[in-house]
């Protein structure tokens, strides 16, 4: 990663960590096939951003995560948790 921009810094991992968090929640928490699917969906969505909007690419995974959480709060493949009261 540091080689691709020819500098390195202590904060380089943060954007990847947050994106990974978005991936696991998007696919469904605790669901391994869901994590794989979430990674594919987020990676492809980021890759298909048109080049004139390339500056906003970092926001795409989080926008997707927000929308998916509002439509399916348990994630793409997650099982709906029945709350016992």
């Amino acid at each position: 990663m540091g080689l691709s921009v020819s500098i390195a810094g202590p904060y380089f991992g943060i954007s990847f960590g947050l994106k990974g968090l978005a991936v696991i929640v998007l696919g469904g928490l605790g669901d391994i096939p869901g994590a794989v699917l979430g990674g594919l969906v987020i990676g492809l969505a980021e890759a298909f951003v048109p080049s004139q909007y390339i500056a906003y690419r970092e926001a795409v995974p989080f926008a997707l995560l927000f929308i998916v959480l509002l439509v399916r709060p348990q994630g793409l493949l997650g099982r709906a948790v029945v709350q016992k009261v």
Partner: protein
Amino acid sequence: MAAFIATYGFLIVSMVLAAILALSLYLPLMAGQLSLASPGFYALGGYIGAILATRVFTGESGLYPVKWVLLEMAVGGLASGVLAVLVGVPALRLRGIFLAFATIAFVEILRVLSLNLDVTGEPSGSSAFPSPSRPSSATCGLPRRCSS
């Protein structure tokens, strides 16, 4: 006293701002839910104040009127409140860790927007703020900016 404020005023203001931000995170936590969205509203209010001061309210020369500062605060608060309703109504469905993730996602979206939009000045932000107090070498609010 003037020397004390000149030296530590910026620090004290930063401390109070951080304390208010921390309280705004603690309020939903007291209700049992971790909502991390308030840095987004904090950022929106700050950006609105900055944009109004540097680009909109630039009519008068000389001292910046205090009433405009109060107007900026009111506009920033209202805009943040409207955004909070827009985000909060759909987020009412979420609980626990999913609410935390959704609000982190919201703050990240806002961060990327503020780093890239023209109106926010991109990563370098806004500069040359007008001052409501009389700027002089003795009572300059920001020691770091005044030295240059």
